[in-house]
């Protein structure tokens, strides 16, 4: 466990500047780090949607949240917590979050996102396709600068 944490620290400390940005998945039994190329190796979903952040439609792409969570294993978990680089975090039940058809966006309009552009990863919901999700109670799951996902 300590070794894993040390490894994690190493990845965060070193990886931010030079290496690929990564996301850390963890649960009680351990953790898993996925870098952007690994995430982009998963089947990709493209969402073209209006957002509260930009004027007009923006295209986001990345693996589905479900697929990302399955990399660690969804079974047996009740709650999921998303944590951002700025320490913002939000939690919800696994089932309700999976129902949102969210993706872990790695690219906006085809380009990778920097931290200044609220990347590198951004939980994105298909707001245009599912207008019922365009509501503050779902907006809070749209975590930008996503750094870690914890399952409980």
């Amino acid at each position, binding site marked *: 466990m300590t070794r894993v944490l040390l490894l994690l620290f190493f990845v965060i*400390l*070193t990886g*931010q*500047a030079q290496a690929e940005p990564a996301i850390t998945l963890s649960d009680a039994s351990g953790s898993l780090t996925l870098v952007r190329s690994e995430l982009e190796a998963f089947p990709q979903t493209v969402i073209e949607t209006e*957002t*509260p*952040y*930009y*004027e007009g439609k923006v295209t986001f792409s990345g693996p589905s949240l479900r697929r990302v969570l399955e990399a660690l294993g969804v079974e047996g978990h009740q709650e999921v917590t998303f944590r951002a*680089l*700025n*320490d*913002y975090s939000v939690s919800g039940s696994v089932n309700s979050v999976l129902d949102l058809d969210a993706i872990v966006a790695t690219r906006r309009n085809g380009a990778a996102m*920097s*931290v*200044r*552009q*609220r990347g590198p990863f951004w939980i994105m919901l298909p707001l245009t396709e599912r207008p019922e999700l365009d509501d*503050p109670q779902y907006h809070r799951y749209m975590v*930008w*600068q996503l750094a870690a996902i914890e399952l409980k």
Partner: protein
Amino acid sequence: MGSRSAAQRVFSRPVVVTLFVALVLLLGASFHTYRQDQELQSVSLAELRMASWNLAQLGHEADEFGHELRSMTTVAADQDQLLLQYDILWSRYDYLLQSRESAPTRNHSDNESRLRSLFSQLRAMETPLMALVSGQRSDWDTLTMQWQPQRLALQQLVVDNFVGDETGLLMDQVQASRERLSLLSVLTLVVVAVILCYLAFALIYIRRQSRIDQQTGLPNANYLQVLPSVDVGQAIIACEIRDYRVVLSEYGTDYAADLTHTFIDRLKVGLELYSFQLVQLSPSEFVIFVHTGDTGQLVRQLLASVHFDWMVHDAVLPVRGIFGIDPAGAGPTLDWQDRYQQAQRCLAQAERQGLDHCINNQDLRKQLMEERLVHAGLVRFLADEPSSLSLSLVYQPIVSTGNIKDIRGAEVLLRAWQEELGPVPPNRVVELCERFGLGRQLGRWLFRQVAMETRQLYTDLGFQGTLSINLNPAMLADELETDVRSLLLDAGIPASCLCMEITEDNAALNFGRINELIQHLSQAGVGFALDDFGTGHSSLEYVRELKIDRLKIDRCFVQGIEHSAAKARFLGSIIAMAEQGFLKSVVEGVENEAQWNLVRAMGGSLVQGFFAYKPMLFSDFLAEILTHWSTVSTDHTLEVSS
């Protein structure tokens, strides 16, 4: 009267309009405040929350960056973390200044310009920061100095947005709106409650008004409908102003209303010794509920009181009230409505009989019960259904004064028999038929019966005597000719042997019309007689005006002629008068030999009376004719046609 006008003021149009306007204004104000409140809640509060959240994050992220910056001169220095926090802060400014979602935050007050200024100050740190990180410079303190004013300005921005005037004002507005809304809600509720009470009172008022006559202020017919009961110790009196219609038609509504008021005052005078309640059904009809033990005394007082001369213009009109009374505690205990009906029935009875009052007592009830029995029997009998009442005919021969056995004809008389009542007086049968619209049915039955009984007498025996038939009033109509032809003449009764008797009462002064009827039948040979001559009004006028052939002199002119020469002379002069007018006279009611001899001495007339013959069944009448045929005068030869 005072309370009434007060009530009228309360329910006047201005009050109603004012209340209505107040309610509409309050509802409008409530709605307006509600909308304002909704706006404040849905827009301002959401924006405020968003702004607070974003600025809190900005403050937090700035602190993180400042913390990393300060640590750069210590052992905990972490360049990557510093750059990451710089980028995070940078993205926060970018988000606040660019994103659609944060537009309300930057649009609030002068937030946008302050944010832009802060963002440009942060970007100005980028070059020295990069130089420091890459090791080209090492004066971290300079950068920290550059950061300090930003941190303070940023803190001030956060503070201003959280607890500054604008936020406070917004919260105050929300609070004020809330208070206004709740106040308005209470006010609206109060006004609605007031209006509901008002409506309830209005309803009661209207219901009460609807039970009061607007002219006189007396309870009206609607009051009777809600009257639950009447003490059996109270007499129920139905009352009517007899001459009201005359006043209304001759003098108009104002005078009629005046008469009503006068009459009511008079009634109250008549009732002043009693405890009573007066109800007005119409301008001329009243009902009185009055406690009295002595109905007779009360009626006398009432009659005296409402029997008065009413001055109108220069004329004096004798006014009379008519009363129908159901006395207190009389008869079996009935529902008051039934007693009220009895009182009305008494009033109708009094009117019918031309009396000034009629009391519902044993006799009247018996009479009414009998009338019902007879009426029901008549309806069934005339409809040819099995009936408790049966009608039959008897014949009273009319003889010549020359020979008492010389039967010149007969008057057909009606007899009625009711199973329970026994014989019913024929005039009562006729009166009931007239009252209940059975008159023509009765007449037609009589014609048919006469024809059936006497036809053979004429067709087979060649009898030429006259049959006198009383016409009840309903028969004096256009259908008379048709009925006489189809029921009598067509059946074989010679027109010349028929004499229709009209009484003075039912000739009813319309001589023109009656003469028309007479003329139609006279042309066919049917004769007409004026019955009961001398008993009605204007008798001589009838004799002069009606085109009749016979005069039937009433029995009252015969009574006593054997004891009084004057009476005898008077009868003689009537007969003489008839002769002068080419009328045949028939003297009725000759009951003894002395009378017979006197009438006979006067000569020239026919006689009908007990001394000659009593009314008899047709079979006896026939036998009588056949018996005395041989003795009759030569101009009445019997022809046996068979």
